[in-house]
């Protein structure tokens, strides 16, 4: 589909905005509506749009399969790792109040932010993997 000019130009304009919006929604999940799930899906939608218009080979050049596989596992490990870090600092599992921060309120905000990053990474990479597996090239 990349020989059509309109699709190519619009995709090149839209994909950076979608990626930035996805990162913004994940990070500002605590301040407004949003969070890990929503931001992860928007990030994935940016990559999927690139994959639809420019083809799977270009998508694999940008984001190889090993990266998405590793990213999915890394997201879950970030989440569980935050819980273990709380245990190592003397609290209970996933008890964010003992993390190093100014006061317990900021410590809980830190824990929640780390956890949301983990969730966003897993959701994004799994959605890209699902699209990658299910769709096939039209001329193949």
């Amino acid at each position: 589909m990349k020989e059509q000019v309109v699709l190519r130009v619009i995709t090149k304009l839209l994909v950076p905005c979608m990626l930035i919006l996805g990162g913004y929604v994940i990070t500002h999940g605590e301040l407004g509506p949003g969070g890990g799930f929503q931001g992860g899906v928007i990030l994935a939608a940016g990559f999927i749009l690139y994959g639809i218009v420019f083809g799977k080979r270009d998508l694999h050049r940008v984001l190889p399969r090993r990266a998405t596989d590793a990213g999915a596992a890394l997201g879950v490990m970030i989440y569980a790792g935050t819980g273990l870090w709380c245990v190592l600092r003397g609290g209970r599992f996933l008890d964010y109040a003992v993390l190093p921060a100014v006061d317990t309120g900021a410590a809980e905000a830190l824990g929640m932010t780390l956890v949301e990053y983990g969730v966003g990474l897993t959701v994004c990479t799994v959605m890209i993997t699902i699209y990658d597996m299910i769709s096939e090239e039209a001329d193949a």
Partner: protein
Amino acid sequence: MSFLGSFAGTYNYAIYIVLMMVGFYGVIAKKNLIKQALGLGLFATGIFLYYISIGVYKGGTAPVWTIIDEVGVLKNPGPYDNPLSHVLILTAIVVSVSTLAVALALIVNIQRAYGTIEEDEIRAIEAGEHPEEEEVA
């Protein structure tokens, strides 16, 4: 009659049940596997709608505070809708789409194995290939 009196207040739950039942009909009555997956999605979304509606507070706003300053004074007074139902449904929506993805992968495999995704044609192929199993079962 008190039956009609309570129905006048809870008729919206009846509409949500109608939505769920439309999805349920799609699952049990349709022969195409993709139609069944779509019906399952309808059923799930109807359940989410029901679940969210029980947390609504009359005259309440979205459960997001607008500003917190250092002493904890908030600029958005007033009752809030209960956020617990939103939390449980958030995870349920994403899990539901993951389940849909696995179901679609199975449908793709069935299409490759049998050449069709209509349920009765698959049964006919199975019966044609294994007639002795059909007599036993």
